């Protein structure tokens, strides 16, 4: 056991506890960025002028009419930018574009005394456009050869040779949709010039340091002149990793120019039409199986639909390519990846970050091929699971592969899967119009940022003279319970009751150069940094306690607010802190952590980019109505590996929530872009909650059993835990595959079912219709 992972007795980590802000959430007392507006004087409100074209040159921009609208204070345009007119890190995202690249692209922003004045002002701005040809779908982009960024190639073994020798070879194409984040809190920023002349931006951002950098380069300032704070977010899911920067920069620019605080909060329509989403992908593949059903070779081309700018598409693509194996050993692999450029929002990070897209391809292949191979899909998946000693196509050993089998067999047993398969078969035999299906799918998800440099974190821990402890760290809270876990880590390391530790909101002037709270890494990285800071303080205090108690400092233990030796009297924490102060001992520390042992050659697509893998298995049972294609999720059983959980209630919440969000992506959530040649080409036609449906109570599984894998200590992470934010999302493949299973039951045995994604009721209906051989009305 490593010192990083070793847990002391009576640790506060591992204790189930509610979210640290739960009492504030339920009483409406928890503050979010836009709740600060009424606490701030003389705030101006921002409203965008959005392009009605998918692609056009701006030939004239007349802002003067807006100033005739009562209450309009300022119109922000490219001419106002003192620094770099760009909202990204790749310098391909002009903040004020001269060429609009998607329907909804903001051309300029109007600031008003009220939101209504700004809105009316935006209607008064006159923009002339010269429409340009546009590419809306990924297929159009592929046909036109419209790509951006660097294409990648991942290869192991000899695919040609292996396919030639395979017993069964299948080919196919599969295009699947992206997903809107639909965090309940839309993008928001509130910027002001503070009493010391510094730019201070409250931002709903997963990446305060990058928001700070972008604001600084837009304003032409150094980073030390800009501070960004994120109180908390009303959901992020990756959508606030890159996307908040431009909005924060607009607010900061407005505040600089007017001297007044500027609030920018997108309404839902603006958020959905302007901000990036999960990438949809196109894939084409050829797969080979041996006579024993084992995967022999996979040859695939993945095309990510990147939208108008590069954003995070390159690392998303890399993760997709690194997860096309999911949990399966494929000896010979060749994957080509590329990023299409289309006239849509700039697609971005979303929980799983390409991983789900890569894994969906192999799960779709297995689901389609199982009947053709004569295998039950459940058996086909199981026999292809990674075994101890296997390595991934990019050359990383699959450590703890045995946990896949542990999770699988535990779900089989606890979920009564065998019994239910018999029941389902009996049900299906006696029901002509309704069929049930059951599927099990595994998850193996690599933890760490693919880009090694991001795997570092900082923390700042203060112990005040009265013994109270204040912790800061670089991670942001978006509902995932990171702050709860960090408080538990600090209390554990210092041997204090949880109530003695308080956490301050994330600010770039407390901890600099932070990485995004992303890649599920928040607790691993920041937890280790906090632990490091707390250990520095604890070691100094052990010296003081040793002197006070007359024992060796190395024998001092901190438990429940008392420092004591192996036996005898102890000294109370408060007294010890006071003593240390008077001995002029430093009572605060900056902590740092970098993940050791990672290496990655991005060009060769080889190395060990991940510290470890998170595993899980789900079994889902659905019922499909043959009349309509509508379905219900009857039961879900999950066993998931979170290591030794830092906070079990939080972790179970992440698993359940991720699963349902994944189910939404695969079944219900239906992003539709206008691909016609009409006036609305490129427009997002599902741009509201009324047209883009996310899971509601009716999609919650009727029976939902989630179990954490036991004896799951992870040596390489803080207090033996594992990351949990993203991996459970992909357990939802089991729902999609169960739908396929149920749809197949409408036909004869051995029917292979093509199922689009999302598998909406309409999509399932047509799949059933195909299985039934088409409906004849006259009977």
């Amino acid at each position, binding site marked *: 056991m490593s010192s990083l992972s070793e847990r002391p007795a009576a640790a506060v980590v591992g204790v189930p506890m509610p979210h640290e802000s739960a009492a504030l*959430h339920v009483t409406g007392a928890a503050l979010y960025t836009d709740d600060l507006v009424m606490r701030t004087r003389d705030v101006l409100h921002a409203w965008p002028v959005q392009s009605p074209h998918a692609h056009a040159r701006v030939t004239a921009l007349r802002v003067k009419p807006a100033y005739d609208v009562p209450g309009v204070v300022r119109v922000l345009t490219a001419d106002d930018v003192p620094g770099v007119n760009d909202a990204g890190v790749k310098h391909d995202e002009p903040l004020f574009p001269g060429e609009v690249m998607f329907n909804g692209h903001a051309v300029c922003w109007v600031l008003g005394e009220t939101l209504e004045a700004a809105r009316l002002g935006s209607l008064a701005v006159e923009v002339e456009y010269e429409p340009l040809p546009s590419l809306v779908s990924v297929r159009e982009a592929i046909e036109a050869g419209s790509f951006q960024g660097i294409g990648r190639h991942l290869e192991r073994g000899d695919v040609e040779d292996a396919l030639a020798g395979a017993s069964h070879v299948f080919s196919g194409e599969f295009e699947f949709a992206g997903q809107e984040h639909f965090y309940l809190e839309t993008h928001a920023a509130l910027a002001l010039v503070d009493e010391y002349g510094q730019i201070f931006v409250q931002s709903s951002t997963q990446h305060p340091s990058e928001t700070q950098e972008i604001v600084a380069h837009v304003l032409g300032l150094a980073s030390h002149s800009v501070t960004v704070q994120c109180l908390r977010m009303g959901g992020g899911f990756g959508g606030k990793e890159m996307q908040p920067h431009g909005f924060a920069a607009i607010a900061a620019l407005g505040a600089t120019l007017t001297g007044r605080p500027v609030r920018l909060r997108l309404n839902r329509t603006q958020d959905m039409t302007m901000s990036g989403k999960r990438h949809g992908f196109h894939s084409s593949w050829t797969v080979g199986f041996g006579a024993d059903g084992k995967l022999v070779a996979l040859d695939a081309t993945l095309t990510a639909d990147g939208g108008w700018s590069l954003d995070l598409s390159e690392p998303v693509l890399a993760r997709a390519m690194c997860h096309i194996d999911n949990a399966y050993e494929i000896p010979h692999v060749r994957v080509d990846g590329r990023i299409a450029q289309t006239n849509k929002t700039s697609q971005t990070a979303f929980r799983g970050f390409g991983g789900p897209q890569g894994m969906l391809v192999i799960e779709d292949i297995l689901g389609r091929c199982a009947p053709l191979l004569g295998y039950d899909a459940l058996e086909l998946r199981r026999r292809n699971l990674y075994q101890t000693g296997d390595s991934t196509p990019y050359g990383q050993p699959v450590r703890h592969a045995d946990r896949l089998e542990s999770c699988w067999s535990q779900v089989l047993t606890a979920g009564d899967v065998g019994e239910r398969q018999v029941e389902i078969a009996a049900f299906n035999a006696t029901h002509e119009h309704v069929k049930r299906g059951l599927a099990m799918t595994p998850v193996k998800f690599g933890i760490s940022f693919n880009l090694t440099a991001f795997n570092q974190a900082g923390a700042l821990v203060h112990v005040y003279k009265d013994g109270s402890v204040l912790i800061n760290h670089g991670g942001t809270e978006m509902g995932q319970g990171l702050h709860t876990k960090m408080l538990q880590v600090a209390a554990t390391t210092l041997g204090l009751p949880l109530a003695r530790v308080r956490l301050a909101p994330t600010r770039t002037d407390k901890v600099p150069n932070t990485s995004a709270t992303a890649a599920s890494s928040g607790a691993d990285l920041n937890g280790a940094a906090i632990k490091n800071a707390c250990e520095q303080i604890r070691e100094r205090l052990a010296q003081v306690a040793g002197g006070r108690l007359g024992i060796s400092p190395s024998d001092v233990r901190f438990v429940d607010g008392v420092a004591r030796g192996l036996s005898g009297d102890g000294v109370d924490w408060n007294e010890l802190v006071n003593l240390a102060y008077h001995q002029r001992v430093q009572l605060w520390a900056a902590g740092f952590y970098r993940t050791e042992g990672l290496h990655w050659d991005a060009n060769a697509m080889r190395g060990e980019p991940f510290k470890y893998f998170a595993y899980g298995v789900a079994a889902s049972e659905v019922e499909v109505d043959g009349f309509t294609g509508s379905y219900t999720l009857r039961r879900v059983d999950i066993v998931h590996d979170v290591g030794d959980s830092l906070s079990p209630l939080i972790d179970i919440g992440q698993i359940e929530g991720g699963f349902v969000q994944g189910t939404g992506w695969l079944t219900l959530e239906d992003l539709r872009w206008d691909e016609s040649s009409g006036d609305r080409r490129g427009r997002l036609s599902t741009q509201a909650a009324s047209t883009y449906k996310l899971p509601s*109570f009716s999609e919650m599984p009727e029976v939902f059993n989630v179990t954490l894998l036991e004896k799951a200590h992870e040596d390489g992470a803080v207090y033996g835990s594992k990351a949990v934010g993203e991996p459970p999302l992909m357990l939802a493949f089991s729902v999609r595959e169960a739908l396929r299973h149920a749809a197949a039951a409408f036909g004869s045995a051995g029917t292979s079912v093509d199922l689009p994604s999302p598998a909406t009721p309409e999509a399932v209906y047509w799949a059933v219709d195909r299985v039934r051989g088409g409906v004849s009305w006259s009977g």
Partner: protein
Amino acid sequence: MTTQALRAPALTVNGELTALGDISVHTTVLDWLRDRGLTGAKEGCAEGECGACSVMVARPGTDSQTEWTAVNACLLPVASLDGQELVTSEGLGSPAELHPVQQEMAVRGGSQCGYCTPGFICSMAAEYYRPGRACGEGDHEHGPNGFDLHSLSGNLCRCTGYRPIRDAAYALDAPAENDTFAARQDAAPPAPVATGMVSTEGEFVRPASLDGVLELIAEQPDAQLVAGSTDLGVQVNIFGSRPSLTIAIDRLEELREFSFGVDEVRLGAALTLTEIERRLAGRVPLLAQLMPQFASRLIRNGATIGGNLGTGSPIGDAPPALLALDASLVLASRRGERVVPLAEYFTGYRQTVKDPDELIRTIVIPLPLAPMTAFHKIAKRRFDDISSVAIGYAVDVTDGVVREARIGLGGVAATPLRARETEAALVRRPWTEETVRIAAGVMAAEGTPMDDHRASSSYRSAMLGQSLLRFYFQGVGA
């Protein structure tokens, strides 16, 4: 935005009488609350879909004098709450003293990011206080404590996956003896207040009588009538509509009649869908089947039956059901009243025979009801979605022969319509699979369905045919 108040409009918020102050007549309850520092309620969608803005208002009750009724604060103009009482998540409890609903949600992991939570709290608290809530067996949509999960159908959470929220709801006890919110339900609700407000953006009026409304709309035919504001609120928030005159009619007694007689059922146009659901209590099975599928509880608490017909929308859920029930509308104007069969009411896309100076006063459903009825709604999501296709059935089969069949369709043409050809293909024929399969083929060709983001036209057509098959097979128990 100066407001000329004819009196000083005010609203009781969390027990404190608060002047509405200097506002626009279109200011929503949500924006008004947030401007006053009550930032618990959030804007998640501004169209009544997500429930992050849910608050409780004191409304006339069905099973008690007053009922705490959860509504979407983003849709209602605050002017419409003049003289009323409202409670937000902040008013229910504080971090130091949590309300029982807040307590259960907090300890069970019912909040993650917390943004939707205050709205869930208000929707859940309203169900907690529902007078008719009683312990029972429970099923997958009702807790052992009688908690109806549909009460949360208008609240979206993107983080939790809902299971802990359900567990919190099902763990709730009955309100304590000394619970002040429960006690409030035993007293009369706040009376409607004749309101008149003017701001630079228009005028808001709540006349004290129907005659007053009819006078106004006779003089100003472009006036906007508002009841629950579940449609108008969307027009204002999303489409920038700013009517110059808004007339509130939701509390007029003349529009709130309810009777279940021998020959007919009379439903006042300003009854909310929730009120109709509760008062009918299953006596019109077709409507009982419709109600849980009609938008969400939050919307049904505000939306009125008259409003659903008044907009003339081709995808409203009430028309197909009411067409099948052979309902008629009583239209009132200063000129008098007239009765129009619903089947003759719709004339085109959002067009009806209703003259600009008329309003819908009452919906009349003839009795007896057909013995076999059903409501089928085809949508992506089971709770709170807009129909791709909706079908209402009322069929009378006697001695194995179809004596009468009325089928109402929504979502397949510019107006709701009767499936006349399908009806003809059924009537006087034996109620057999053969008849139904032939009629299903006819039904699949009814209307002129279109392609949109909800469904393809071919799916809509297929659903018409499939629906009739489903109606038949479910009826015969296959």
